[in-house]
């Protein structure tokens, strides 16, 4: 019961923090572009504004277009509940890392189905790109999971977090590669191809408006935080006193987001085929990691 309550606090806390994290990212990005940038709470203001607005749907729409934002949101929230975040407690006795990956994957699939169901051609192109990237990144994630499984002999979240010990090269490499995957999965530049604004008018989001857009955007921010949290949990040692560990978590969350946004600021957008090619180059590296993990190097 206590555990459930702590997890609830996790969720609530993350729901509160996430837009602020995005606000910080925007601020940092603005500074790196010699701009003053919006206030840190700007993302919150945007979301609240969207939540106040009514949603306009297309004439062509069909059911998934309406429901998918909520399902996506639910997927992300449940995935967050499986991870130890602010309070280092989680519902991990309801699922392992495969469940987690599947929840993430299903979120992107529902986004795709929903946006295509709006009947807009831009949304369809965006969804296609999203699915293409998500599918290939699934392969990479599977390889990373395999390396984790070989390192720790397990797929459960208790065993996997943190990866080290063993302090091996393969462990470090695996974490680094997972970080790259998290970067790609969170659709930061140069990988923000599904929402390429100048090419295909925000792709998958083009037909969403008002509340549903708000929910969708919120769940995208949450997805980023989810990936960051996975990354942090892989690194952050377990046996810390509660307050320290929560602080450490939040600090490292901010650190990761600032790091990623700093990288993002100095990249242009890749074309979809270039992005896929880049992701394909990671496959052999991951295979090597698996092999050396097998030999405990």
């Amino acid at each position: 019961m206590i555990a459930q309550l702590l997890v609830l606090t996790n969720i609530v806390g993350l729901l509160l923090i996430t837009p602020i994290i995005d606000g910080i990212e925007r601020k940092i990005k603005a500074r790196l572009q010699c701009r003053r940038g919006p206030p840190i709470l700007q993302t919150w203001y945007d979301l609240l504004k969207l939540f106040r607005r009514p949603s306009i749907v297309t004439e062509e729409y069909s059911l998934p277009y309406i429901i998918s934002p909520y399902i996506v949101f639910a997927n992300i929230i449940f995935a967050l509940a499986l991870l130890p975040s602010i309070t280092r407690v989680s519902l991990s006795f309801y699922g392992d890392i495969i469940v987690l990956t599947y929840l993430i994957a299903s979120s992107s699939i529902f986004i795709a189905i929903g946006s295509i169901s709006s009947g807009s051609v831009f949304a369809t192109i965006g969804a296609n790109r999203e699915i293409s990237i998500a599918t290939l990144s699934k392969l990479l994630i599977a390889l990373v999971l395999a390396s984790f499984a070989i390192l720790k002999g397990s797929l459960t979240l208790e065993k996997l977090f943190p990866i080290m010990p063993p302090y091996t090269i393969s462990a470090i490499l695996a974490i680094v590669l997972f970080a790259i995957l998290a970067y790609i999965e969170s659709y930061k530049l140069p990988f923000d191809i599904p929402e390429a604004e100048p090419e295909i008018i925000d792709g998958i989001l083009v037909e969403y408006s008002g509340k549903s857009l708000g929910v969708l955007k919120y769940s995208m921010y949450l997805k980023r935080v989810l990936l960051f949290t996975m990354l942090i949990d892989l690194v952050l040692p377990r046996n810390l006193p509660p307050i320290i560990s929560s602080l450490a978590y939040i600090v490292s969350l901010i650190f990761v987001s600032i790091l990623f946004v700093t990288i993002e600021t100095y990249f242009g957008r890749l074309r979809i085929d270039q992005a896929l090619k880049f992701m394909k180059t990671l496959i052999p590296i991951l295979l090597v990691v698996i092999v050396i993990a097998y030999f405990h190097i």
Partner: protein
Amino acid sequence: MKASRIEIFKEALKTGVVTKRYPFEPIEVPEGFRGKPSIDTEKCIGCGACASVCPPNALSIEVDAKRGVKRIMLFLGRCIFCGRCQDVCPTEAIKLSREFELSSLNSKDLYQMVELKMARCEMCGRYYATVRQILFTARNVPKDQRPLLLLCDECRSKVSAKYISYARW
């Protein structure tokens, strides 16, 4: 490749923040800036030179023959801030100020109007020109001919014609 990214990064840090919180802090405009024109109602004599040169017809003139007033209209919504009016104005009544914030919730704010009293012709009694215009011209007209200024164009031509005939005779 990476190196160039880092170069840009350094450059950005060196430059620092350049944007201003504009609505909350004013923006400096240089000397001779062509802002929104404003008419000095004291100086304006209603000659209408500005209206005739204004390319987008932001300035316009209308004569109210009944009440005997001449109106100079300036509609900023159409003004392109070229400053021709300033060039041609004989009394420097219309000037381009340095302010450029024209947005307003009420379209009335975009209109400026000068109403000028007009003088009647002494013979036919029509309104023909603004009083100020007559006074302005009076300055550089020889004393003996000034009375002619109190007449409208037609009457003046008639009268001057008479003078000339006298002269011949």
